[in-house]
């Protein structure tokens, strides 16, 4: 499936959001996905890359992918993929956040850096179905204030009275007025979440996930209430190439969304 890049948003110096539309009419209707799933981008001449969808299917007509410059393909994308260009898309693959289970619960989203992208999909979905959920907290951390993506959208969320948004950066900056500190610290000191009837959804760099889960467990969250999305090198997305194996689990088929309970049952490779 070929997609046309509709809009490029430079979120931070090294993160870009691509808003994609299908080249063929009517494909968008067939392309149904749920928050948490991912697609395989293929940039001709550079290769394939896995990205999660950063928008919700409730926003019709397009989907977003946020891409951080990290490897060869992503570097090529930042270099050459502009509005009006075409990319190949395979997907959607993988599982999704347990939407049914989340209904009627308090939600706490914890994102770090580019890890907000998969959460954004779920956040959008939940905002669009706001009445199904109770309290709504977003904790988002980044290295610097520059490194925060979706700045406009965060402002929107902050204006939305039904959401509580907590932002933090790792190092103090002159213009920054709110919280400073790494995510787990803020989580314990500032957010002080309610434990009952709450589901936590977290995503970020591996090191952040690790410590966030530790402090969540310390706060008293049950393992099954902590949901995360894993990253792993993937190439086919079809459960064939064997790259994303963790134990007998294929991250591309059985993941990328796991609860902490499931994570614990996997071999300790991460």
């Amino acid at each position, binding site marked *: 499936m070929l997609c046309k890049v509709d809009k490029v948003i430079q979120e931070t110096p090294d993160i870009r959001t691509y808003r994609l539309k299908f080249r063929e009419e009517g494909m968008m209707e067939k392309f149904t996905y749920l928050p948490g799933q991912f697609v395989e981008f293929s940039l001709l*001449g550079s*290769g394939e890359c896995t990205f999660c969808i950063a928008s919700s299917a409730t926003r019709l007509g397009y989907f977003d992918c946020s891409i951080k410059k990290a490897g*060869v393909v992503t570097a090529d994308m930042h270099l050459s993929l502009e509005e009006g260009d075409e990319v190949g898309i395979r997907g959607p693959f993988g599982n999704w956040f347990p939407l049914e289970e989340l209904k009627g619960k308090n939600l706490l989203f914890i994102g770090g850096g580019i890890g907000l992208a998969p959460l954004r999909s779920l956040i959008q979905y939940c905002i669009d179905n706001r009445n199904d959920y109770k309290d709504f907290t977003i904790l988002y951390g980044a290295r610097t204030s520059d490194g925060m993506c979706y700045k406009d959208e965060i402002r929107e969320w902050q204006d939305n009275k039904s959401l509580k948004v907590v932002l933090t950066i790792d190092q103090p900056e002159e213009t920054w007025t709110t919280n400073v500190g790494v995510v787990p610290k803020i989580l314990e000191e500032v957010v002080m979440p309610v434990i009952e009837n709450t589901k936590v959804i977290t995503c970020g760099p591996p090191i952040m996930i690790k410590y966030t889960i530790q402090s969540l467990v310390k706060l008293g969250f049950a393992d099954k209430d902590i949901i995360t999305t894993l990253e792993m090198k993937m190439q086919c997305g079809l459960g064939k190439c064997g790259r994303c194996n963790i134990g007998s689990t294929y991250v591309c088929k059985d993941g990328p969304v796991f609860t902490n309970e499931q994570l614990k049952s996997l071999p300790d490779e991460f």
Partner: protein
Amino acid sequence: MNYTKQIQEIAAKLFAEGKIDVFVGYRMNGFDDNQVPVLITGPQEVSRLVFTDKSVFNLVNYLKTDHTRRKRVGLVVKGCDSRSLNLMLTESQVKRENLYVVGICCEGVVDDAGRKMQNCTECMVPDAVVSDELLGTPSNIGLQPYAVNPDIAVLAEKPLPERAAYFEEVFENCIRCNACRHSCPLCYCAKCCIDQETATLYNGANTTSGAFHALMTWSLHLAGRCVDCRNCEKACPSHLPLHLLHKQNESVIYENFQEHLAGVIPGDRGAFYKYSMQDPDDFIM
């Protein structure tokens, strides 16, 4: 040639004195009379060490792995192995003070069938050139006149299309497992240039021309450095005659620059790292 006892004694002594963390040697492979490398980390395993004329693998290869990095290592080297060690030292890949080298005055090793390996019959530096301790009687044969490898001589006689067809078969049989590269002590780059991920340069596809590209590049990067230990050829699952490429380079380098033995002199960096005003120029317009 059997230094099993001496090597076991040396290794035990080194462990007892606390001079090394790892000893790299050979052990019996457990199913026939051939040997495989072994990394020994304590005195209790010393009895597994052996050394006979079946000790073929070049152990210097293990100096580039994480098992030996930043550790004090004892290892056994034959003549050709010591030359590659010398090159690694020259190219600052290992620190001499971290090594305890047991040199062997090699009388030639044999292949699976018990024949003397071809490179051993041609060997010009049988005695280890780097060592803390030398086992055996040095042969002191000194520099010998250079003789072109017989395989090269035969192939060079053949007309071009025949050679092309022969090498096409070689490249076609290559499965690109990169065992040659990984078993070569002098291929220590963290990321090989053949594994570049840029699509214009990258050559991941497992095709005949991909193998051509990989093997040719590999052999040219080793030209002037290859010590003819034939680790690559022994490692190749397809039994490709990889020595042909190296020997060809070696013969050209010898004929034109009179440099044919890499790694014999400490600090000598190989033919491609120096030049002379008298180098042949006639092939250039």
